[in-house]
Every structure is written in structure tokens, then in C-alpha cells.
């Protein structure tokens, strides 16, 4: 595996470094350069993160002196229907974004990699939604999906069946799917770009060899393209899981977790619990659970990487 080669090369390079580079003076200079970043990291990331963990064991209301309550906030989460409801929605969201946008991104990138003329135009078209501000695209989609003034009544007027009375953002059964589709509209073009870049780095001789062996398009994709872009694929799977548990913007702008909690996510629940209900300690526990899910995802990935010796 190339990972071993890289590691071996890295170790060889490290051994080859001049002894002077490892002297205490050099180390001090290095630490001095690192110090501002470390300070910023401690102040901006580690400090608040640790204080969130500490607050999750308190009854803090966000303003007054907190009192220690032990594991009460965590114990309360497992019986909290609002928390379980939000967690379910995050899991559905994760499943959706691991499949639909990934599939669309792979397909789009593969098709783009097969063409020469118009490729740049398509890249721009696919990428434009990604650079739009979330607030803008959410406002546009809210209008488009309006049951009174948007695309739906227009289609209904044209006699399109099934759309009459449809209210994607106002129907508890449709709202989560509607927001996921809107988010996907912005997201999948970005995946196309990433996958396309990865596909272009696959050695063309592998495709030639596959064709000589009689492989069709599907086998070429399955046995050459996918293994060739595995680092990108694995990285995006990992990040999709993490991002799916942090999703907030579209949900907050479009429904704020409604109607009737049908689009509530852990992040919107956390925000409401902390800022509307004044239960910052409980909200911190929700935040810690979200962080733990991300940590477990990364840990799982690291284990897989070590066991399967993935080159990522």
C-alpha cells in the first residue's frame, strides 16, 4: 500500500534532517511560532469546549451562577422526547446526505469527466448554488415552495396533478424532506467538483488497462474510479456525518424546527433550550452529545484506517 511507502519515506526524510533542526534552540523557535496559534486555539476552541463540558454538569440558566447537578442533564436527555425526536431527525438527515447528494455528486462528476466540450460551463452551473448565501437561497426556496404564491400554485393552475394543496414547508410529513432537498440543491454541486478533481487524478493508464481487459463503463467505474478516489470519498463520508449533526442554518431559517417539531435538529433544540428556555446547562449536555457523536465518527474512521490501512 502506498501509505506504507509514504510513511517510510517520511521517516527517512525525518532521519535525514540536519541535527541542528532538532536542537533545543530550533525547538524553542518553532514553539514560539506555534504559540500564537495555540493561544488562539485554547481561547477560541478548547476553552469554550471545556467550559461547555463543565456547564453540562450544572443547572446554569445562561446568566446566573451555576449549581452542580452531576449527571442529571444527561440522564434527562434519554427520557426527553424532544431530544430523541431531534436525534432521529439528525440520523435521517445523515442517511439522506450519505446517499442522495453522494450519489448525485458521483454521477455528475463521472459524467463530467467523460465529456470535453462544455465541461467548464457545467462546472460553473453546478457550483453556482454553493457560493450563494444560505439566507438568500433559503428565501428563494421559501417563495418557490409557498403554497399560495410560488411554483406549486402555478403548476396547479397548469393542471399538473398531485401538486394542488401541497405545502412542503408547512406539512409536518414533508418539511424535513423539503429542507434536505433545498440543502442538497446547494450542496451536491460542490461534491461534483470535489469528486471530479479526484477522478482527474486517477491514472489514465488504469482505465486503458481496464478497457483492454474488456471492462464496461460500470466495471470501469466500480473497479477503477471508485478505488482511485477512495481518499476523497472516505473523507467526505466522514465530514458528511459530522456536518449532518451540526446542521443548523437552513433549518433555522426555514422552519426553526417546526411545524410541531417535525424538523427539529439537535442544533435547533440546543439553541432553543439555551436562549429561549434559559436552560444553558441542559443545552450544554446536548452540545456535548453532539461533539461525542463527531468524536466517535472520527474514532471509527481512525480504527478503520488502521485496520484496513487506508491511504487517507
Amino acid at each position, binding site marked *: 500500500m502506498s501509505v506504507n511507502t509514504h510513511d517510510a519515506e517520511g521517516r527517512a526524510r525525518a532521519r535525514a534532517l*540536519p541535527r*541542528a*533542526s532538532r536542537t533545543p534552540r530550533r525547538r524553542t*523557535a518553532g514553539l514560539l511560532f506555534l504559540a*500564537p496559534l495555540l493561544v488562539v486555539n485554547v481561547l477560541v476552541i478548547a476553552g469554550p469546549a471545556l467550559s461547555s463540558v463543565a456547564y453540562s454538569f450544572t443547572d446554569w*440558566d*445562561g*446568566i*446566573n*451562577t451555576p449549581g452542580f447537578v452531576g449527571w442529571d442533564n444527561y440522564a434527562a436527555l434519554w427520557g426527553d422526547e424532544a431530544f430523541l425526536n431531534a436525534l432521529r431527525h439528525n440520523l435521517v438527515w445523515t442517511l439522506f446526505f450519505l446517499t442522495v447528494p453522494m450519489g448525485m455528486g458521483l454521477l455528475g462528476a463521472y459524467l463530467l469527466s467523460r465529456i470535453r466540450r462544455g465541461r467548464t460551463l457545467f462546472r460553473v452551473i453546478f457550483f453556482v448554488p454553493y457560493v450563494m448565501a444560505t439566507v438568500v437561497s433559503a428565501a428563494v426556496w*421559501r417563495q418557490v415552495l*409557498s*403554497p*399560495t404564491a410560488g411554483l406549486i400554485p402555478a403548476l396547479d393552475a397548469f393542471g399538473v396533478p398531485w401538486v394542488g*394543496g401541497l*405545502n412542503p*414547508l*408547512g*406539512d*409536518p410529513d414533508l*418539511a424535513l424532506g423539503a429542507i434536505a432537498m433545498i440543502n442538497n440543491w446547494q450542496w451536491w454541486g460542490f461534491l461534483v467538483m470535489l469528486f471530479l478533481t479526484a477522478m482527474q487524478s486517477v491514472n489514465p493508464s488504469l482505465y486503458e488497462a481496464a478497457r483492454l481487459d474488456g471492462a464496461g463503463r460500470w466495471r470501469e467505474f466500480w473497479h477503477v474510479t471508485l478505488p482511485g478516489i477512495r481518499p476523497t470519498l472516505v473523507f467526505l463520508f466522514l465530514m458528511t456525518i459530522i456536518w449532518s449533526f451540526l446542521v443548523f442554518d437552513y433549518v433555522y431559517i426555514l*422552519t*426553526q*424546527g*417546526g*411545524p*410541531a*417539531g*417535525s424538523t427539529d435538529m439537535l442544533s435547533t433544540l440546543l439553541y*432553543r433550550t439555551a*436562549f*429561549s*428556555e*434559559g*436552560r444553558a446547562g441542559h443545552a450544554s449536555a446536548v452540545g456535548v452529545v453532539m461533539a461525542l457523536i463527531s468524536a466517535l465518527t472520527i474514532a471509527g474512521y481512525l480504527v478503520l484506517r488502521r485496520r484496513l490501512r487506508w491511504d487517507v
Partner: protein
Amino acid sequence: MTYHLPRRDMFKIAGGAFAGATLLSACGGSGGDPSSIEYWGAFPTPETEEYFRANFIDSFNSSTPHSVRMSTKQLTDLASLTDTAVSSGNAPDIIYSPGPTTSISYAQGLKTLELDDYATEYGWDERLLPWAAQLSRVEDRMYSVPTSYGSLVLYYNRAVFEENGWTPPTTRAEFEELCEDADSKGLIPVGAGNSGYPAQSEWYLTCLLNAAVGPNRLYDILTGARDWTDDSVVEAMEMMKEQLDKGWWGGGADRYFTNTDPDMCTGLATGDVAMYMSGTWSFSSMGTFFADSGNDPEDWDWAPLPSLSDDVEPGVYPLAIGTALSISSGSKDPDAAAAFLDHLVGDTGRSLGYLAEQGENPPPVAYESSDFPEGTDPRVQRLYEEIPASTNLGYASWTFLPPETNTALYTEFDKIITGDIEPAEYTEVLNSMFLQELGSGASPTPFTPQ
């Protein structure tokens, strides 16, 4: 290849970094005279901000030995920004609260100063309406000064009402008759919806609870003498559910979650919505909705809420504090901060000028007809003359309910609309939360019904 950075260059880099950091930290400060007190303001329009700056900030700085500097924030962020600043010990001298619930929390945490001496010095207790003075107190000590108040009323379009031969309803029978007629004519009888702002439901719920349960029973509930599970509350919620299912509120459950407040105001102007129960904060913008849709801005009007129960007197005014201000316990100059608070509430002409020019709600003070400046919209003036004269005063949820109960009031209400829970279950959820918060002292003390 390695590169050894000369020591002189390292000093240069370090010096540059220090200078940059100093510059950045200087940019991060609020600037201005460090001896002046700090106030955070938020405004609906740049014109309102300009008016406030000229008539409240600049006039204070030029007419008193003190100095105040205003930092403008986004209206939607002011409360959460203040919370964060207060909890981190970096609050401005004047602390904003969107009502007494938050100011109680600040007072209990000793984040704000007791104001009794200043209240005596400036006569705030005598000046403020009794119910507002009472709400400013925590354990019988004054901790905040309410600087704006309003109510909820029933908005209607005079032209549409004349055309249909309607008059503003005062009883449940009249209300239901008008709703049926409007519905049969293709209008949404009562504007409602919560898209973009889920807490909007509490406007309608406040109207419902005051009009159908009534101030007397609500007082009992708010003091813990009666439960939220009381029959009157359950019946009120059942009535609203029934009317929602008929499509009377916002066009029905399927439309409720996509209707916005601007949609409903525009609908009122265009004649698509017959009535709209909302806050008096819409006084300043209702005319714009009428003008923007090509209608006469003079056509909007309001009436007090109808009674939706035989046991409730028609015309109840639910009272709501929009802004309550306190003095930070970390303020270096509390005397200047108190003087500024008095500048905001102590001059009737200045307060009513702000109301007349910008439509901003005034402090809860008794006003005479002669106090209102020429040019005050008579529809606005009528409200602030009628409320002090009325004995039928009620309770707005966001002013009189503790935070967790108030949030549940509108988030759980969504589930009634969708049919996920029954009204009786809804009241049980509210009851358990409220009793817990009442016990912890987080609930404001309601005024006694008059």
C-alpha cells in the same frame, strides 16, 4: 534546505505582531469617551435610530453633565447579545431586557443594581402605571424601568368592514358570526401563522387566553391558585382547535405554518384577511402594508379584543412590556445611568414625540389627551388613552410567564394544530413546567385584576 531567521528579523516580526494585536484590540473596543456610560440600542429602521439618537442620546449629552454613548445592535440579536455580555461580565451600563422575565433573572443573579433610591429621587414609582411599577420589582425591590409597553388588539380594514356591513365583534357569538360570513365569502376570517417566527403563536394564544379564560382566572393561574389544566383553559384550546380546523385562523392548519406576519398584514390590506389579532407594535407599520398594496393607509383600524366566553368582559387589553432597562452592577457610573433612564421615561413630551413621529411604544405612564403632540395618529392615541382608563387589563404571555413555560406555550401549540396532542395533554405539559418555574422564583408577579 533550512533557513535561519536572524535574531533582528525575529524581533521585527514579534514587534509587528504586537503592534498588530494592539491595533486589533483597539479596533475591538467600543470607542468614544471612556468616562461615558454605554447603552445598546436596536431599531426597526434607520430613521427610528436617527430620531432616537437626536432626541434621546444627543439631548441627554447636551443637557446633563453626564455622557452616554450608544452602540447599535440588530433588533433580533439584542436580547441574546445582552445575555452573553451579562453572563460574561461585560455588560453595558444600561442592560436591556425584552420584558420582566429576563430582568428578574438578572436581578436574582445580582447582575443589576437595586433602583429604589433612584426611583425615589426621580419619582418613578409615582410616574409609572401601578401594574408596571409592580412588574419592575423583585422581592419588593425595584430592579428595572419599563421604557415601552403595548397590548394586543384586533386589527381590521374599515373599507372591507363597511363593504360587508360588519362591525368589530365584541362577543363570541358576534365573532363566530363574522368568521362564518367571512369564510363563506372566501376571506381568511382571522389572520394567523408562524412561519419564520414560531413565537408568533403566542400572540394569538395571549389573545385567546385573555378573551376566553379571562384576566381573573389567568391571575389565579399565574399565582398558582389555579392549574393550567383548569376546564376554562382546556375549553379555550378546544375552541381554537375547532376554529383552526374550520379554516378560520390563518386559513387552516395546512396554511398556518407557512403564513408570516407580513402575509397577514398584507392580506388585511388587500381584503383577503378579515381580522388580525396582533400587537400594537404593528401600529407603526400597518399603514405601510396598506400603502404598498395600493390601499388607503387610513383604512386600517383596531378594536379591543372581543370576549370569547360568557364569563369574560369584552375589550380586555393584555399588557406587555416591550423593553425594561436596568443598571449593570458593574457600571462605573450608576448615577449617570439612572439619569439616562429618567431621560428615557421622565419626559412625557419626549416619549410621545417618539410615538407620534416613529410609532414607537411609549413608557407605561398615564397620559392625558393634551399630552399628545399634534400629528399623533388618533388610532394610536386612542390606545394610550384607553388603557390607563380601563379596568379590563390582561396578561401577555411573554411578559408574565417564566421562560420555559412560555416557550412550551407556543412550541407545544404546534402539536395541537397538527393533532399530535389533545388540548388536555397540552395544558398538563404547561402545568408541570409552570409549577416548577413558579417554585424557583422565575415567574414575574402579576398585577391584581382591577
